[in-house]
């Protein structure tokens, strides 16, 4: 059974400081003109979006580098993620999105203005991660006292993007109104999907560069800076 939630932006941990930080203004204060622009776009986005998330919990097991679910569906998660999911006997398949209104707003406001587009894109990226975090709190209410892993998505850590097709099929095709393109990318673009391992034995802290051998990971590149 799918658990779907509509979310009010006020429910999210989504401060302006997270956007400034993401753009790079950790130690440096942006000049007034830029700060005002970021603040205006941030407030406008908050007013127009209707985020939502959904998850479905299924029993399953890890076999080699695959996750095999009770219904026979298989995810080819690969070496890295199968290790990080060790100990899970249930799996939450999830999606989370900022919603279609964000896409419309971006199209209207950012048209022909790359600075606006860049800022709105950053706001969307931070927002969808905040929606993902909220989804995890809903999941915890459902699965406590069991523990859960971080969320993992096709296309990362060696998990083929094509497994999105299986994921979306199991979530009834258009979860939270998200459409999967032929290339297995999601529309609205600011959406996330994937699985979370659940169990009494899972290591919820196990994530990060020391667990992963992927040289091409963008997170590893950022840490090297």
């Amino acid at each position, binding site marked *: 059974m799918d658990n779907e939630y509509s979310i009010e932006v006020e429910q999210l941990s989504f401060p302006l400081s997270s956007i400034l930080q993401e*753009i790079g203004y950790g130690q440096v204060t*942006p000049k007034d003109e830029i700060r005002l622009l970021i603040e205006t776009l941030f407030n406008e986005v908050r007013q127009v979006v209707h985020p939502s998330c959904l998850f479905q919990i299924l029993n399953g097991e890890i076999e080699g580098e695959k996750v095999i679910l009770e219904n026979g569906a298989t995810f080819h998660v690969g070496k890295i993620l199968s290790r990080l999911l060790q100990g899970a006997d249930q799996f939450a398949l999830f999606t989370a999105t900022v919603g279609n209104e964000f896409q419309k707003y971006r199209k209207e406001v950012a048209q022909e203005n*790359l*600075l606006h*587009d860049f800022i709105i894109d950053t706001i969307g990226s931070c927002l969808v991660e905040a929606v993902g975090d909220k989804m995890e709190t809903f999941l915890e209410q459902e699965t406590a006292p069991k523990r859960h892993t971080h969320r993992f998505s096709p*296309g990362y850590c060696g998990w083929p*993007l094509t497994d999105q097709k299986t994921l979306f099929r199991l979530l009834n095709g258009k979860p939270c109104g998200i459409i999967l393109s032929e290339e297995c*990318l999601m529309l609205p673009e600011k959406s996330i999907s994937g699985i979370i391992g659940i169990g009494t034995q899972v290591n919820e802290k196990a994530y990060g560069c020391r667990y992963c051998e992927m040289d*091409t990971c963008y997170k590893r*590149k950022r840490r090297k800076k």
Partner: protein
Amino acid sequence: MTDLENLYLAILNGNLEMAENITAEAVKEQIAPQLIIQEYMAKAMHETGKRFEAGEAFVPELLMSARAMKGALDILKPLMVGEGTKGMGKVVIGTVKGDLHDIGKNLVAFMLEGCGFDVINLGVNISSDKFVEAVKEHKAQIVCLSALLTTTMNYMKTIIQALEESGLRKQVKIMIGGAPVTEAFAAQIGADGYSENANAAVALAQRLIAG
């Protein structure tokens, strides 16, 4: 008489209106476009780039400076026709097939334009055939390939092979960029260079054109 130091400051501070006004005044005073570009505009962009690399400026500042530079350049361009001056070079840019991410690619395109390159932005989800056609049609000197996913970055190699098979590889330099891409990956697939951000992409393009 126009104080071109203010043009330098206008571009450095990303003030489009001021940059356009001062440039228009300089044109009226018949100051040579090459002097305006080389001594003031390019130096301002260089300083913005330096601040970006030092973590003192970020993408918004880069974009605002590039926008001011582009506005000023647009005023000078008509005067440079027939002067024996050339643009920085022609660039074909696109996000590779299977990938719909465009913001990073657009940042690079905008910065290149701001720094005087002619940019043909093909968009996202671009096949090797389309890259080959565009290089032929526009006689590009540089091809920029962008990918955000580990699953789509390998298509960059397909594009390089297609350029080789069509006999165009020797006439273009190939630059790659995107979150999962590295210098080592660029070498592995036979690209001419990799850049980590839009500012570095401009510097790399300038180096590649200079040979």
